[in-house]
């Protein structure tokens, strides 16, 4: 108990989620010893990284009191543009920057529509979900773009000190994201806007500009995820990333980010994303049909939020 007391208030909520994750791992370990082998754990980490990266952006957006349904489509669009750039012979780094910029710009458009156009985030990003998907399909004529250099594919398939590169990228982004969220003006303003937008305005927070930045961040992270996915599949698909928004929202929400805004931490989101990844992987190993998998994952999301709400109410 004393140990818990020493954890800052903000982080205590994450402890429950972590216990949930450990519990899941334990269950799968008991059911199939293969689950806890190093190669499978690395596999989970690699699979989780893309959802976990998108979920960083969604955590920012949700903390700021919004929602972003367009991440999956922005991923597809950024992915095909990156691929197109690579095919034109643009160097890898340049292509990546172009892809990430495409994501950022789509996100920034969301931000403009929401902040200056006063559209509800749900509507603006729902529209962008369709627009970016259409743009991806138009860009490639509906066909995937495949076949990239080994060095590009290394981004997803390579290892360093026996850990997959995407895991390094994910961890790096989480460290940076956590810093931005807790130590910079962007993060502070995100909490302020989501916690009480009116009070934020009256405190001189330039709410509109920061909404643009925050939705832009979400788009840019979709762009990064797009590069990893494209490298992993060795193919950029205009139909990639469908339903990714739901997994990312689930990761954030399981991790304790409040859909009402103003509350949440990236540590929780990371654990949430791992829970989703462990569930998928474990159920796959056990050979459970994907129909049942979907049902189980949905149940876990609902249970996690129900328990969270129950605990919060009891505290009051």
């Amino acid at each position: 108990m004393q140990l818990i007391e020493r954890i800052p208030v903000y982080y205590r909520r994450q402890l429950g989620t972590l216990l949930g994750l450990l519990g899941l791992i334990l269950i799968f370990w008991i059911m199939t010893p293969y689950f806890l082998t190093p190669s499978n754990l690395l596999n989970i980490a690699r699979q989780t990284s893309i959802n976990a990266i998108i979920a960083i952006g969604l955590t920012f957006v949700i903390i700021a009191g919004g929602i972003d349904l367009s991440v999956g489509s922005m991923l597809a669009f950024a992915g095909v543009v990156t691929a197109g750039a690579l095919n034109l012979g643009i160097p890898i780094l340049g292509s990546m920057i172009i892809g990430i910029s495409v994501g950022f710009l789509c996100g920034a458009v969301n931000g403009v529509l929401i902040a200056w156009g006063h559209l509800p985030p749900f509507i603006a990003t729902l529209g962008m979900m369709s627009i970016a998907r259409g743009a991806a399909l138009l860009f490639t004529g509906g066909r995937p773009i495949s076949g990239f250099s080994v060095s590009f594919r290394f981004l997803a398939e390579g290892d360093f000190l026996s850990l997959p590169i995407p895991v390094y990228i994910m961890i790096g982004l989480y460290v940076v994201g956590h810093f931005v969220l807790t130590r910079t003006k962007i993060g502070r303003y995100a909490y302020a806007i989501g916690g009480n937008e009116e009070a934020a305005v009256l405190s001189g927070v330039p709410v509109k500009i920061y909404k643009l930045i925050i939705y832009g961040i979400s788009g840019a992270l979709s762009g990064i995820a797009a590069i990893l996915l494209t490298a992993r599949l060795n193919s950029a698909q205009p139909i990639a990333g469908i339903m990714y928004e739901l997994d990312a929202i689930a990761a954030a929400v399981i991790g304790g980010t409040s859909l009402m805004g103003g509350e949440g931490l990236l540590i929780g989101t990371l654990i949430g994303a791992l829970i989703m990844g462990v569930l998928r992987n474990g159920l796959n190993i056990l050979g459970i049909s994907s129909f049942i998998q979907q049902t189980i994952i949905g149940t876990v999301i609902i249970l996690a939020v129900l328990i969270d709400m129950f605990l919060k109410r009891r505290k009051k």
Partner: protein
Amino acid sequence: MLNEYLLEMHHINKIYPGVVALDDVSFKLKAGMVHVLLGENGAGKSTLIKIISGATLKSQGLIILDNEEVDILNPREALDLGVATIYQELNLVPQLTVAENIYLGREPVTKSGLIDQKRMMQDVTEILNSLGANIPPESKVSSLGIARQQMVEIAKAISIQMKILILDEPTSALSHHEIEQLFSVIRKLKENGIGIIYISHRLEEIFEIGDCVTVLRDGKVMGNFPVESVKLSELIRLMADREVHDHFPKQEAKPGAEILQVEHISRKGILHDISFSLHKGEILGISGLMGSGRTELARVLFGVEKADTGTIFLNKKEVRIDSPREAIQNRIAYLSEDRKVQGLILKMSLENNISLPGIKGITVIGIIRKEAEHRLAGRYVNELHIKATGLDQLAESLSGGNQQKVVIAKWLVCQSDIFIFDEPTRGIDVAAKVEIYHLMNQLTARGAAIIMISSELPEIMGMSDRILVISYGRIAGEFLPKYCSQENLLECALGVDHAVN
């Protein structure tokens, strides 16, 4: 024997934590009478009607309705007992038709279980005709003006066979002609034996529509009169004349140079040609009823709302203030009326709340210097004696007085020169009030200027160097607290007298 009273309330007490809202209030309503409730903001009128309409529970006392003792536990029960309330904010569903609104929740059904549209239309038409209101029952409520929406509410009350109708400031948004129409409907209701409780700030209406009047002040009944036997001046005296038992630690500060000058500010329908000046070291009290435009004036000065015309000078220089951000850059601070809705981010720690408007001072290329933030917040927590478990305590779990101090700390960080306090001591306990008055003194001693908007006349009288009264969006008078009484201010705010001292 039949009781001549529809409603009797005996020795009603209502106690909120720390506040006695009603203190031994007795009130009787006769059938076919319009009984006016009179009192300042916070005198207890709203609490009283909330108890009658089931919106809140009495702490003690007896309510007799139709010769029977009743406990009104919720609004539903009040309606079942025939008590209908029409609030200032109307309670209609704009997207539904007039008839659907009137029968909402108790729609008549045909044998087959469908809504009996025909009967509904017939009944509603009948009721509306009896009111002399020419409103088609099938029109959408959203297409009606306020006056006609009010008629729909009255029709709804009639359709539930109300015996008592409570009208809370029904005329505040009506034109002269519409008021006449409302009064003629009220007279019809009287003829049908309905008892009406009427709340209004427009004193002249009392004599036009009222039969008797009860004056409340600080939760107590100050008097009960038939309208024909009482004078307006007497009513005002009873409303305002309270003993000043609070202690106001007012320290005289020497007003210095002019810091703010406001010229001819107008905002259509809300503010009319407001001009005044503010000096360093001065507390300028702004008195006026709720809705008189005082908060809107503050919001214009702080750049939340735009004035249609008018100019603002800071230190003799003309400035444009188009957003709170620009106001803050011009060293203006605004402590809003409702700290929970507008002042604080409740789920944030008090430290993060304090540093929010002045965050620039503790950031380097967008990165917040935690050490500096701790030092800053810690300093103000000490200086203002904010009671908290730590800097990371969430703002929502602080007491009202401490929350208000956090809001003040926010603006101290910004080194503001002009503080606009809107209801600075609402809902906080006496000890914390006095601390906040002391803080104001410290600010003015330092050369800051304060605009203090308050509904509490003793506070205005006790803390201001100069007082402006705003009435119906105009500056109705300017007073010096030494040479005026609370009655003078109230008279002026009510628009009875346009005298300028």
